[in-house]
């Protein structure tokens, strides 16, 4: 297990190193380079040369990469010229809020999606099954920004039961203090995941319900509730664990859209605004962060799978 963890962590670092090369290359593929991007189209060649010299952009490429890596390792992610703050400070402010939104949405998706899928499997080919299936396809096929707008129109404008905007706050505490404001963003983000989780759970549960061990549990005279919760759930969950790990990129991408639609000051909105203002250091840092999350999500999913399934020996 320890050996497995070491090897997988090592592999993850290799992936991230590869990503850093791509990200580093991006800064050099920018038309005119970062100097032009930051100083603007009207900057004089002299100003650009001075900028390049000041930031080391006139040194050989490999040296630049080494210095980029060394500052990365030290936690120096660069400086946002448009916001006049270090990127690290921006992230420290916005990451917790986005994590709160994402994790809440993930939790809701799991809590709603998995039982829904099991209920469908148990009541297979009934009105309930068909209704949930139709709903899941609708939710899955709808673009998330459109879903967000619909939710605002229905619940904030027509019914006026929920605020149309996410909590406007600089800190995580502010977001925590306003649960009503989080309902619609979380719902918009969770609905897509609920749709996919319930579909996968339905087929996994149907497959497992036909297994011999379920018949054995019935032969023991266990109540149906115990059979579903103790025997079916854990076995049917196994393929879903990987799915949840793989859904992390989708959640990150979903954040990007949802935070814009609901004006939630998280990483997604930061990324969106930075893109509009060509704030490259921020975008590069966020790209790197996104890759790290994807790698981490897969690692966590594999570890969780190993814990959930005693047959899998991680080695």
């Amino acid at each position: 297990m320890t050996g497995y963890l070491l090897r997988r962590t090592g592999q993850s670092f290799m992936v991230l190193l590869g990503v850093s090369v791509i990200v580093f290359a991006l800064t050099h593929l920018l038309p005119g380079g970062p100097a032009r991007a930051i100083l603007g189209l009207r900057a004089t060649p002299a100003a650009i040369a001075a900028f390049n010299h000041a930031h080391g952009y006139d040194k050989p490429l490999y040296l630049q990469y080494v210095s980029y890596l060394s500052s990365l390792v030290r936690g120096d992610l660069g400086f946002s010229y448009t916001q006049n703050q270090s990127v690290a400070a921006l992230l420290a402010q916005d990451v917790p809020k986005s994590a709160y939104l994402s994790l809440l949405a993930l939790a809701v998706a799991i809590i709603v999606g998995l039982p829904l899928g099991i209920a469908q499997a148990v009541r297979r080919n009934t009105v309930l099954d068909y209704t949930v299936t139709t709903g899941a396809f609708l939710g899955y096929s709808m673009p998330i920004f459109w879903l967000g707008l619909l939710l605002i129109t229905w619940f904030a404008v027509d019914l006026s039961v929920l605020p149309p905007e996410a909590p406007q706050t600089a800190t995580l505490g502010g977001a925590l203090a306003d649960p009503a404001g989080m309902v619609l963003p979380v719902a918009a983000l969770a609905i897509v995941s609920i749709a996919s989780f319930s579909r996968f759970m339905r087929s996994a549960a149907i497959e497992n319900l036909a297994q011999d061990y379920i018949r054995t549990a019935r032969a023991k005279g266990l109540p149906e509730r115990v059979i579903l919760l103790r025997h079916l759930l854990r076995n049917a969950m196994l393929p879903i664990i990987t799915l949840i790990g793989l859904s992390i990129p989708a959640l990150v991408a979903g954040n990007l859209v949802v935070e814009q639609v609901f004006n939630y000051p998280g990483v997604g909105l930061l990324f969106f605004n930075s893109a509009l203002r060509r704030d490259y250091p921020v975008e590069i840092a966020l790209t790197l962060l996104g890759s790290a999350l994807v790698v981490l999500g897969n690692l966590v999913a594999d570890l969780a799978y190993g814990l959930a399934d005693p047959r899998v020996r991680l080695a």
Partner: protein
Amino acid sequence: MRSLLEVSDLRTDIRQRRGTVHAVDGVSLTLGEGQILGLVGESGSGKTMTGMSIVRLLPSGGRLVGGSVTLAGQELTTLDAHAMRRVRGNEIGVVFQDPMTSLNPTMTIGQQIAESVQCHRGVSRSAARARAAETLGLVGMPHATQRLDNYPHQLSGGMRQRVMIAMALACEPKLLIADEPTTALDATISEQVLELLDDLRTRLGMGILLITHDLGVIARYADQVAVMYAGRIVETGPVGLLFRRMRHRYTEALMAAVPRRDQDTGTDLYSIPGRPPDLSDPPPGCRFSPRCRFAQQDCRTLDPPLTIVTPGHQHACWHPVDYRDDTGPTLQLTERSARNRALDPQIRPLTTPLVEVRDLVKEYPVTAGVFHRRAGTLSAVAGVSFSLAPGETLGLVGESGCGKSTLGRLLVALEKPTSGSVIVGGQDITVASAHELRPIRRDLQLMFQDPYASLDPRMRVGAILREPLAIQRIGRRQDQDRRVGALLGQVGLPASAAQYYPHEFSGGQRQRIGLARALALEPKLVVADEPVSALDVSIQAQILNLMRELRERLGLSYLIISHDLAVVRYLADRIAVMYLGKLVEIGPATQVSEHPAHPYTEALLRAVPELPSPSGATDGATAVGRARPLVSGELPSAINPPSGCRFRTRCPRAQPLCAEVEPPLRPWGPHHLAACHFPLTQPASGGA
């Protein structure tokens, strides 16, 4: 004997899209306390459905439509779902066929046994756990308490089945329903499990409904037998009487289809033509009549009632076996003209062998750790040598995990050995390049065990049979199509079969297709890995007869790999016995099966329950004698095999020498070799 279970006129329907299947159609059974009632029949006969109807564990669409089931005086069919749940696992325990899939892989065995106790007895968690340990001890699990925290995958097949039994027994049920409890197990392990069940019913006074397709198991363990066919009981009676004085023509045919120890290998096995009927639309009259040789007009129109022969012995047949002239069964088996035993190893001249295997070794590395360093070696085949003459059939037997399938794959060059050689037609195929191998592969073909999994479901049968011809670039398209038609004819299928997909055929027909595929390239050797173990007795006989007929017609050699000694004995000229990668005995089939030299061979032979011979003893109810199992325990791991003789850890005759010196293969007689320090019979002095 007090009656424990009374089933009368039980009817179960299964509603399916294509119609309603009358899976159980008026079944009546009686089981006494402490008795074993054997329910025997082929797949689809409704035997499992009968068992599941008693506990109401029916598949979706299934429901009881009539009859009654009383357990110790209590009517079960009228109980509501909740009350029935209190009966299941508490008063009736169920043991299923495959212990691997029947146990929950994500729960420890302790939890799985204890939850039944907690559910029915309402005891605390620790009390339930203590009971689980106690029950595991009862079923002979060594170190039961430590084993509680094991998961099913950490146990061997035999141990898993013990866990299944412990689970069923945890609440001390009055009735145990065992549905094919040992079908997934090796003969030696199966014997241990059946002995355990037999022992438990005497100790606990519990009744057992033993559902199986294996007549031998019934003959050895059951007190009463009920034979099922197409949803009905066709004959029932005490075991001794039923096996020696069977009356129903189906019972007679079923028994004739089983290869016996004293089977004359020169005769065809009796095979029942056709297939069991479709139970959504059963034939009128006697349901066996379309396949019965003795059927008359009345059989096809009138339903035969159960007729009482003697108290307890009943049958439903219009023209039963007649014993008045005391000549025994009248079923005449087709006698073949005495087979030209040119292949008889006793008289066979020393011809050039077709295949010669020399010191074949196959090892698989076992890796561990971060860098996959080699942690050990799994020794699958460890220095095996033998030769196979043209037209000869060699039977290879041994428990699962002994390396027999690996040996088969090495022989057809599907795997490269670690060392040693396989010489075919003067060429060593273990060193041949892929290019050199291609023409040789024509001579070496495989026939697989599972006719469901080994044919590509998306290819038509014609394409499956044409593929080898296309790969070897034999003939043009029309020639290939003609060859496909001829092949289908050879295995007894119509030429139109080429147009269909594999799933449209029955298991027996699919195995015919598998055989046709193996024969497409006119091979010299067919390696048949468990060719009939997935088939029912009546179908098995059809395939065995076909394999024999083709061998004689085409001059084939077979390597028959099987755990079923009766099958091997019926087809093989010589038998080779493998244990943990080693050949422990090899010799002429009759010699090995009648006068085995190696204790392991004897143990394997004795582990297989035999049918009492119908012609031999007519003295009625002689109990079928049996001794305690000869081998205890299970096949050790091939990763660190025991030193010296690999069998010594389970051998009743083992002595210190066995651990130190590996016994060499020594000659016992003409072509008969065995590797044992303390053999059952003395070797030929001076050798052969």
